[in-house]
């Protein structure tokens, strides 16, 4: 069984469109993350949620809006897509036992990634 899953795996869309990427984890973790990996393989955190509460919100355009309906899901919605949004987006989760601030001594499990291409 896939621990952290993302859909879709590939997403090709036109500039200006709105799209969503879904993430689900079946590990019982309480903290989830979104990362962006650019063409040079640089990984940068975008958001993290702990028990559905936003913990980390990096300097990301407000066109990006994460939504966590429950602890097992963290979806990423992107409005008005731009060429520079093209990247691979990774979801991850970890078990922080509900502690705040989160304790990253626990490893993060990553999903397979969603390759977003904006034309």
């Amino acid at each position, binding site marked *: 069984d896939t621990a*952290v899953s993302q859909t879709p795996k590939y997403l090709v869309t036109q500039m200006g469109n709105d799209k969503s990427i879904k993430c689900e984890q079946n590990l019982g973790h309480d903290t989830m993350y979104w*990362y962006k990996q650019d063409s*040079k*393989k*640089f*990984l*940068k*955190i975008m958001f993290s949620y702990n028990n559905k509460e936003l*913990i*980390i919100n990096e300097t990301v355009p407000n066109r990006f809006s994460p939504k966590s309906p429950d602890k097992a899901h963290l979806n990423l919605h992107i409005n008005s897509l731009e060429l520079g949004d093209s990247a691979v987006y*990774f979801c*991850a989760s970890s078990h922080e036992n509900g502690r705040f*601030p*989160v*304790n*990253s*001594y626990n*490893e*993060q*499990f*990553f*999903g*397979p*990634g969603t390759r977003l291409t904006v034309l």
Partner: protein
Amino acid sequence: GESVGLHLPTLSVQEGDNSIINCAYSNSASDYFIWYKQESGKGPQFIIDIRSNMDKRQGQRVTVLLNKTVKHLSLQIAATQPGDSAVYFCAERGSYQKVTFGTGTKLQVIP
């Protein structure tokens, strides 16, 4: 600013030899460090971690060394195998519990 960087972007190693991947970090407040392996088309996978109160930790065929004096982290892979070919990232947990990834090193194992 805070940064995590790597000295070598690409490392080629003969199969069976030992590999050493280096990482420099600049945030002296970082208290936790992780190495991840990313194979082509997949997400990063945890390899080994180390807390700042340690200077060495061993796993199966992998060893992580931490030198806080010079802010240096290394990953040693013993008897490198073709399956070890991947991009390796070091990451640090610094301020506000945020995990920051380094730029990655591509390890190529020559059969």
